[in-house]
Every structure is written in structure tokens, then in C-alpha cells.
């Protein structure tokens, strides 16, 4: 019979909610107690089943090819714990490079532990990468009186060629229209498409984007109104422009 305290610990353990020292202590108990181990395994399966309680969406077909290309570019999978692959896994926003508390690392006790360790090592590597200087932050303001209350901030990571745009207080575009982000790089005669930016009822949006084409030097960002779904070349009025 598993007492309540250990049931609590098992619940927290499977949700990765224990701090490192508590997790280590619990793993020591797991190693010595088959009943607790079985109970924890059952809770882990139950927790993972929650993944089925998500609205069904399919990844884009292109993603499969990207994933396959990525793994082909790697060597045969390692049979020992792999080194963190920060070059591919660096979330662009890590570039903000905050001062972070150091994650405690510990030795592997078993294979599952090894998984956790690898993930934390990876996270640790990412958090310590100081790329703040590379990130560009631009603010966009209204160019048309009726959009005067609206504004936007774009954070751009040139290394990852990724960014996030955050809009606020923009009126919803009329039917059949969308807001679309443009990246202005002098290398190209036309602004580069950054994708549509759907706003909610309050005129708010927060969208990550990757331009259609590689950009090296960014002169500015702009938001225009375009036909729903976006267009490859800007046609509509520019409502917000970088300062």
C-alpha cells in the first residue's frame, strides 16, 4: 500500500515537479521499492494519456521532410547519452540571454533519469548562451489615423532567422482581410513576407514568424492589410511601420 505522502511524491515526480534533490531522493526509493515503482509507472501512463485530450491538429507535411533531413544529417543515433545539440535546438528567444539561475545537474541513476538529465543539460546550455547582442527589437507605430491606438513590437533573431511580433489595440481587419508582416531588407526589391498576423477580438496578437526568404540586413518592419491568408507581395496599405 502506497501512503499518501508517496502518492504525492509520485504525482509530482511524473510531472517533473520535484526539485532535483527531492527527485534524487525519490528515485532512491523507487530503486528499492517495486510496488512504488509500479505505482509511479501507472501514474506516468495516466499523466501521458492527458496528451490525448488536446484538439486534433496535424503538423504540416513539410515538417516530416524537415525532421527526416535533420536526422539524416546526424550520425547514427548514439547508444550512450548524446551531447546536447544546441545548434539545432536553440529556441530563438533564448537569444534574449537572460541572467539565469544555474540548473542543478546530477548523475544518471537510470535510463529515465538519463533522459531528464539530457534535457536539463540541453536547457542549461541554451540558457547560458549569450546572444542578447544579436537580437533586434523594433517598435512599429501607426501610419494611418484610424489605427493610431495600435502598435507593435518585433523581436528578431538574425542567427535563427526567426522572430516574434506582438500587436496591440489594432481594429480587426474587415472581412476577407488579414494583417500581414513585412521585413524590409535592401537586398530585395520587394518587402519579404513575414506571414499573416491574426488578431483576437481585442486587437491583440502574439505570433512567431520566419520570413519567406533569408534576410541579412533589416532596415525596417511593416504591417499592412492584405487579402485573407496573405499575399507573396505587399499590396495593401501599410498601417504600422517601424520607427
Amino acid at each position, binding site marked *: 500500500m502506497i501512503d499518501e505522502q508517496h502518492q504525492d511524491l509520485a504525482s509530482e515526480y511524473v510531472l*517533473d515537479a520535484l526539485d532535483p534533490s527531492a527527485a534524487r531522493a525519490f528515485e532512491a526509493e523507487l530503486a528499492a521499492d517495486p510496488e512504488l515503482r509500479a505505482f509511479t509507472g501507472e501514474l506516468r501512463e495516466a499523466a501521458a494519456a492527458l496528451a490525448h485530450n488536446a484538439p486534433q491538429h496535424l503538423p504540416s507535411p513539410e515538417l516530416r521532410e524537415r525532421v527526416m533531413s535533420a536526422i539524416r544529417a546526424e550520425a547514427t543515433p548514439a547508444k550512450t547519452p548524446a551531447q546536447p545539440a544546441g545548434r539545432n535546438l536553440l529556441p530563438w528567444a533564448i537569444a534574449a540571454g537572460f541572467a539565469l539561475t544555474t540548473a542543478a545537474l546530477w548523475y544518471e541513476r537510470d535510463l529515465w533519469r538519463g533522459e531528464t538529465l539530457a534535457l536539463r543539460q540541453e536547457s542549461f546550455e541554451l540558457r547560458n548562451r549569450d546572444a542578447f547582442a544579436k537580437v533586434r527589437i523594433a517598435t512599429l507605430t501607426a501610419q494611418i489615423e484610424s489605427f493610431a491606438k495600435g502598435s507593435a513590437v518585433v523581436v528578431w533573431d538574425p542567427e535563427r532567422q526567426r522572430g*516574434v511580433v506582438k500587436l496591440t489595440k489594432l481594429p480587426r481587419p474587415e472581412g476577407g482581410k488579414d494583417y500581414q508582416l513585412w521585413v524590409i531588407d535592401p537586398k530585395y526589391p520587394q518587402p519579404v513576407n513575414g506571414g499573416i498576423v491574426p488578431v483576437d477580438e481585442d486587437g491583440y496578437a502574439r505570433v512567431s514568424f520566419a520570413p519567406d526568404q533569408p534576410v541579412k540586413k533589416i532596415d525596417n518592419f511593416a504591417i499592412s492589410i492584405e487579402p485573407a491568408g496573405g499575399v507573396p507581395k505587399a499590396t495593401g496599405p501599410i498601417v504600422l511601420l517601424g520607427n
Partner: protein
Amino acid sequence: MRISPAAEARSPMTSTKEADRKLDAQLLARIATGDEVAFGALYDRFSPGLFSFVLKMVRDEREAEDVLQEGFAHLWRRAATYDPARSSPFTWAVMILRNKAIDRLRVRQRLDRTLERATVEFSHFPESDESSSGEAERRDQGSQVRSALTLIPAEQKQAVEMAFFSGLTHEQIAEKLGAPLGTIKARIRRGLLKLRDSLKENS
């Protein structure tokens, strides 16, 4: 979830689950040897379910795809460490992807702070509502889990789902819900136990 051989014999659904689990474990074993075909097959089997739940966590399709790509790269590199005695292959994958998504969510929290700082520093960007609209749930898959969740008291379900999908610590959940930490822990424990029991019964 452990299922007795007798129950397995009675339930075609359970037999199918066990067969799926064996197949997935075999695919992982082949992936551990560098078998790209097996990897592609596992991707096709897992990616719809994994993408859906990651999208529910990060609420951004592009980021969800990034997480999926990172997660599958991790599965490719770490397939040899999968231990069938500890979990099903899908559970193993879910927990890896969940950790990746939580990393993203924590990065996003820091990014949001950067955005706020940037707006104060560079402009007079007005305060905005950070709340995001909820997603309407489709009911065409995962009916077993959804059915099981209906049997769990609302407070427990809320706490369990917040703990699983949001990446918040139990302390943060307690703060958000305005309940003592001990209460939140108990709700999560009881919710998970009921979910386990309901899923067992449905099997």
C-alpha cells in the same frame, strides 16, 4: 498501465493497445540502430498526437512544429535509452516532448518580460491583455481520455491539466488558483489516481 492477461483476452481494444505498444517498441529498437525507415514509421504514428498536445501547450503552430522537430531529433538520438519496463513508447515520447514544450514556455515567459522591458524602453507601448482565447476541443479522438476526465471532479481536473499542459510549478498553480499548496498537491494526486482508475476500467 498494467493489464492482466485475462483482461487482455477479454478486450480487443486492450489487445490492440498492447500490439501497438509492441510495434512501437520494435520501431524504437530499430531506430536505435540507425534505421531511418523505422524512424519515419514512428513519426507517422506519433506525430499527429504529439503535435496536437504540444500545440495545446505552446498555442503557436510554428513553435509547436519546432518542438516536434526537436523532440523527434531527441528520440532519434536517444532511442537506445528507451526502457519498455518503465513506460510505453508513446508515454516516453510524450514526456520528452512535454519537457521540450515546457522549456519553450519558460523561454516565452522570459521573452514576454523582455518585450515589456523593450516597450518601456523604446516606446510607449500600451499594456495589453495577455490572456489567450481557449481552443474549442474536437471530440473525434481521445474519447476514452475525455470520458475518463468527465468522471474527475472539476477542481481536480483543472489542477491536473494545469500541471500537465501549462508547465507551471505546483506553487504557481496554487497561486493562480488561490488555493493552499497542499490542496493543489492533493487535487493533482487524486485527479491522477482517478484518471488512472478510469482508464483501467475503460480498458
